[in-house]
């Protein structure tokens, strides 16, 4: 019964997100490996850190592999992995944050204490320990990173929701006897989508950063999978030769995250 209006609501929200940009990155993520001129693991040149050439549009990497091909594959995994992480973390954070604001009392206290505890351990360390304990498979990375970034989202959403749950329309819904799920999703959440979107953008940046920094410490995605941060990291030595192998992935990270954030910010502008 209640599913239909739910679906309708979400369908009506989604087009308002700057869809074209997200679509572009998702397409690139899915098609990247197809578009790659070489296999990402293939050594194609005896020269490492080769500069831009007609053969290798972005040169070669530290082993002499084609940077463009690796970049196309790395973009895919970065986008998909970080998107999954962000969606998971923010879904949990949003829902629990609003619930805590709504229920107050013990629920709020316990949730907040738990989240504070998680957030107080540096993210890189938590990820490191998780990878050490459970291996660096994609599900472990996504789950660990989601858990790491959920408290931040929770904190933000709880603060945002605190002012909203005191508004009379939430009270009206409660007086009507609405279930918590309905109140969270239909009454409270639609009123904070702008700031939540901005928060989602920031979490995405953090996820990309954490993935990069994990690769700095030698954990992260399993080869032959790679992400933009690892590409930057593994070719870091190329910096001294000005190699595109290190510049290209770093630029891609910047374009990806900044573009997404500006798009999400503009969404906030429309709603407010």
């Amino acid at each position, binding site marked *: 019964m209640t599913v239909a209006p739910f679906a309708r609501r979400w369908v009506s929200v989604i087009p308002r997100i700057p869809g074209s940009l997200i679509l572009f990155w998702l397409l690139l993520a899915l098609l990247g490996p197809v578009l790659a001129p070489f*296999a990402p*693991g*293939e*050594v194609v040149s*005896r020269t*490492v*850190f080769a500069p831009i050439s007609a053969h290798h549009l972005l040169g070669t990497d*530290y*082993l*002499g592999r084609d940077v463009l091909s690796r970049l196309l594959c790395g973009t895919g995994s970065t986008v998909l992995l970080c998107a999954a992480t962000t969606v998971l973390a923010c879904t949990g954070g949003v829902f629990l944050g609003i619930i805590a604001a709504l229920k107050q009392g013990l629920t709020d206290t316990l949730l907040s204490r738990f989240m504070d505890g998680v957030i107080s351990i540096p993210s890189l360390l938590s990820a*490191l320990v998780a*990878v*050490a304990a459970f*291996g*660096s498979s994609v599900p472990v990375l996504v789950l660990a990173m989601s858990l790491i970034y959920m408290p931040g989202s929770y904190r933000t959403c709880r603060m945002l929701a605190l002012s909203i749950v005191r508004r009379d329309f939430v009270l009206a819904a409660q007086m009507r006897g609405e279930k918590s799920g309905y109140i969270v999703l239909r009454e409270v959440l639609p009123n904070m989508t702008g700031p939540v979107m901005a928060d989602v953008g920031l979490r995405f940046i953090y996820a990309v950063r954490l993935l990069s920094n994990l690769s*700095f410490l*030698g*954990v992260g995605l*399993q*080869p*032959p999978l790679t992400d933009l941060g690892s590409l930057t990291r593994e070719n*870091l*030595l*190329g*910096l*001294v*030769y000005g190699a595109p192998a290190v510049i290209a992935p770093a630029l891609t990270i910047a374009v990806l995250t900044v573009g997404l954030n500006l798009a999400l910010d503009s969404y906030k502008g429309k709603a407010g």
Partner: protein
Amino acid sequence: MLSRRDMMKQGALLVAAGGGALRSCPARAAQPLRGGHVRVASTTGSLSDTLDPARESMATDYMRGAMFYDGLVTLDATLVPQPALAERIESDDFRTWTFHLRPGVQFHDGATLTSADVVYSLRRHLDPLVASQVRFQARAMRSVRADGPLGVVIELDAPNISFPSVLGLNNFAIIRDGTKNFETANGTGPFRCAAFQPGIRSLAVRNPDFWKTDGVWIDSLELISISDDMARHNALLSGDVDIIAEVNPRLVALLRQRGMGVMESPTGTYTDLAIRQDIGPGKNPEFVQAIKHLFNRDQVADSVWLGFCRLGNDQPLPPEDRYYNHDLPQTVFDPDRAKWLLNKNGFLNQELPPLICSPAANASVDIAVLLQNEASRIGMKLDVRRMPADGYWSQSWMHFPLGFGNVNARGSADMTFSLAFASAAPWNESHWRSSRFDELLALSRREADEAKRKAIYYEMQTLIHDGSGLCIPNFITSLDGYHQRIRGLRPHLGGHLMGNNFSRFIWVDENAGARETESAPA
């Protein structure tokens, strides 16, 4: 015992091996000067940094230990044991060894070296609480006893003509009797420990009472560790440090272009793939054969090492070793044969265990990825599983059917064979069992005749090459970077800044840096 002639032979060998290295170490007949402070950046450093010789396990530990401690013997540039704290070594049956200590050697705290110190230092390796890295080697000593104030008698389980090499390991350095606290170092070495902060730095100042009157030129040395490659090189380039260990092959060109020296030391260090022969596909010798043929050794040499390596032939002795078997046919890259072998045994349509690798094993991830790529070209699906560096050696290494390892140059061929290839060896990576090999090993340890021993070693290499599950694609050339004002560095078969002993040989030429920079080719 060890003849002069041996040493001369090895000296000749050194010249041959170090030919390439001369390029980076101009043989200028300058007189070493005393004085100067030198900063050295090594690679790994952590909380586990130690001043306990028994626990030393990382290059930084060995370098630090070598500044403060001496062993009974020391291994020279060709890994030949030379007298150090022991003036004389005697053995009739290679089973009972008598060491005559150098008289009048003083510890840093002023105490004089006696046989009690040596007995204590050697015996403690057997205590599990000491967590000694050489407990296995120490177990070969059935008894260690003092024979007067300057005599130590060691009785082995079985004869071993190479036993002095074992005591040349840094871990067997001599400490003061009864030492339990290692917050500072009380050794007999050329430097005293002025500061030691695990994971941060060690500061050494020259020991004026050092027993050896020649050598040891610099006044003080600070040893730090920078694990990040780029940061370490930057520190050298910016002048923050004078010497760095482990130059990345990709940065050799940059360092030389900027007037820095890069010392190339051919070593027996290798990164290997071990295919276990007791479990998984490695039980089938043809699988092992196929993988050996699948290693594109030239490509690994070019892509991973940028040529700073020598070809490996799936046996552990490097070409520079005096016992290297030149007659052994080289395993070649032959994907067609590999495919044929694999196909024949049905491995191509079979799920295979993953290649286990880790940043802990030097370049193993890159080599694994290259192997994976070659495998995929012949339709073989090999997964790569990278493990975290911490815990790799105890938790992953040798635990999986296909796993990478990384072995530093060992002190002698005997040590290599007995520690990593004998059936009972603790680090027999491929779990290879060969009774013939074990026989030969026992035989070689008693064989005083050099030519006969060489023949035995030749056969042992052949056995490993043909039978063991170890793929050794390359031997790695150790690269160390230094500022031109640093003199005295010479290639060493042990690699790693003269087998970690550089502090005893380097000297500072304050004017050289400027001159060298001017004359450096652009």
